[in-house]
């Protein structure tokens, strides 16, 4: 049941025969274009936030730059009523699930119009209409919550699927093992997406896990576990497609490990190079495998992205972000009288 998907044209079937070889075979043009736009929206949003972090945005912010293919490839398989739970590094998941950019930017500014009304900041994003009940800054904290929404779906007899995004770091927490086991035991409709970006704060994954092949842990719980190139949106898409489908068919959970890399440092706009935590060559080698460039190359080869298209998409996204920034700047702060509001629902 446990298998390894590799990048490039060598993808192998995970379970059954749904995965085909060859770059984009079996994925609709709409899905491909959608993933491209999502990834670009995330990238440009994060890069603009990196600039704003120098003096306008004050809350601790963990940027998603470099990991875009994971959020885009997974969420392209989800419906609005499917649940997504995220972490401290939550912008990419929020955007990929369809969250509003203005409300996101306003949240980073601590404004009343933010998606958490200024109470949460970057690490705590919610958008209920889009199936985002909230993200947690406690490592591993949302994994059982995704199992719980899956339990609710199962109890109610509806076919919504829950997705838990988490990092390699979260696999060090006991809650991870307890949650995956319980989901497997009850065959709940949940998909576990591990974004293995090779670091947990200042520590490389090899300094944390005795076995760094995270996907192999699935075997212990008798569920499918796969490892994919997390910088290849198509590979992520295909693996997620199977996992989401099997969850929807009540066939239980899947663990997908996406190998990727965060370009920026753990937190904030810097790169963690100056602190000696990782080296320039490593960063450069991952930047050379930019998930967006990879997809764009493929789209142009398939005549799905002309030079003019590309230019227009970039321009539209930039305008959308400009509007989000203007909205955030102009929005009011929460009223001081609201400090004690919302401790309880009344």
């Amino acid at each position, binding site marked *: 049941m446990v298998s390894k998907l590799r990048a490039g044209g060598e993808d192998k079937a995970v379970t059954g025969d749904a995965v085909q070889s060859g770059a984009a075979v079996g994925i609709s043009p709409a899905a491909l274009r959608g993933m491209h736009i999502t990834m670009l929206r995330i990238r440009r949003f994060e890069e603009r936030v990196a600039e704003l972090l120098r003096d306008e945005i*004050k*809350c*601790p912010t963990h940027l998603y730059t470099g990991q875009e293919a994971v959020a885009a490839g997974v969420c392209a398989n989800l419906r609005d009523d499917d649940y997504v739970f995220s972490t401290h590094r939550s912008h990419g998941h929020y955007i990929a699930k369809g969250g509003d950019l203005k409300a996101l930017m306003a949240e980073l500014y*601590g*404004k*009343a119009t933010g998606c*958490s009304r*200024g*109470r*949460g*900041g970057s*690490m*705590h994003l919610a958008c209920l209409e889009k199936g985002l009940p909230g993200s*947690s*800054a*406690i*490592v*591993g*904290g949302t994994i059982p919550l995704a199992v719980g929404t899956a339990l609710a779906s199962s109890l109610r007899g509806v076919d919504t699927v829950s997705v838990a995004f988490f990092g390699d*770091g*979260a696999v*060090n*927490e*006991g*809650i991870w093992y307890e949650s995956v086991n319980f989901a497997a035991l009850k065959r709940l409709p949940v998909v576990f997406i591990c974004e293995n970006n090779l670091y*947990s*704060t*200042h*520590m490389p994954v090899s*300094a*944390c*896990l005795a076995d760094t092949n995270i996907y192999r842990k699935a075997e212990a719980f008798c569920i499918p576990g796969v490892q994919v190139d997390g910088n290849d949106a198509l590979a992520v898409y295909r693996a997620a497609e199977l996992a989401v489908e099997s969850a929807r068919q009540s066939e239980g959970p899947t663990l997908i490990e996406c190998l990727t890399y965060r370009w920026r440092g753990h937190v904030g706009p810097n790169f963690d190079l100056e*602190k*000696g*935590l990782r080296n320039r060559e490593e960063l450069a080698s991952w930047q050379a495998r930019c998930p967006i460039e990879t997809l764009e190359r493929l789209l142009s080869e398939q005549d799905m992205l002309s030079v003019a298209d590309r230019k227009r998409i970039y321009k539209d996204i930039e305008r959308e972000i400009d509007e989000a920034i203007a909205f955030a700047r102009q929005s009011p*702060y*929460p009223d*001081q009288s*609201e*400090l*004690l509001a919302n*401790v309880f629902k009344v």
Partner: protein
Amino acid sequence: MCMGKMTYAQAINQTLRQMLEADGSVFLMGQGVTSPWYVGTTTAGLIDSFGPERIIDTPVSENAVSGTAVGAALAGMRPVLVHPRMDFMYYAMDQIVNHAANWYYMFGGQVSVPLTVWAIINRGGEQAAQHSQALQMLFAHIPGLKVVMPSTPYDAKGLLVAAVRDDNPVVYVDDRWLYNVEGDVPEEIYSVPIGKGVMRRSGSDLTIVAASYMVIEAMKAAEQLGREGVSAEVIDLRSLKPLDEELLLGSVHKTGRLVVADGTWRTGGMSAGISAIVAEKAFASLKAPVGRVTLPDAPAPASCVLEKLYYPGAEDIVMAARKVVAAS
């Protein structure tokens, strides 16, 4: 005695170094002990001097790592277990409370747990509800745990030494807002007794009781009150458990008025416990109801405008003091 001026963070660093040198059973374990930012500069250079066997940076596994420290302590080691944020300690609660705190009693006093749980408060900066918490009272509530909260570099060292030498689990709580505070720190190893507070400023009209960072705010408030003709005494508790009742009650008997400057939540927080002791044991001395300055009963908000309101400071203490004085 050789004295040096240093910051609170440097005092912790020096103490760890000296305790590691002095006692082979001491080791440091927890998240971020080799990180350039996780625990400020408190552990800078330790890995180079003592190596990864005794300076153990850990994966994010709070529960297991805490239990491992408890086990090592059962075997006679003296671990210093660091949690770089109190918010992350909920995962570790079972090992600290059910195991470390109960062990000595539960087996009739046969084997104790000489463990220092170094717990850091890291708040402000729009970090929101899961990156802001000050949980000292949760620990103070637990039988079998001692809780200390130094406010000066001198005490940061002396109480850390006392915690490491204590044969019981001691929760040593420091607030990163104190890390750059400077003060005189003797070079040699010394300890500050656990359970003993200290009077930081003598006064006759009003007692302000505080711990940790709130002592700094209390001293500022006392100065302001002095300018207004109110002579305020400031008591730094240093230990929340055991609590120096003698010092507290002595001061209240003298001044007849009390304001508690508290960095915890209002319900069941430090000020609630202290008010109860004073009501029980110094009722006759009180000339006015006790004033309480606390965090509101709400999680920490992110937005800077709400955050500013959330954390009380010297001004709030002054206002509470004026009210107590006016009521008598």
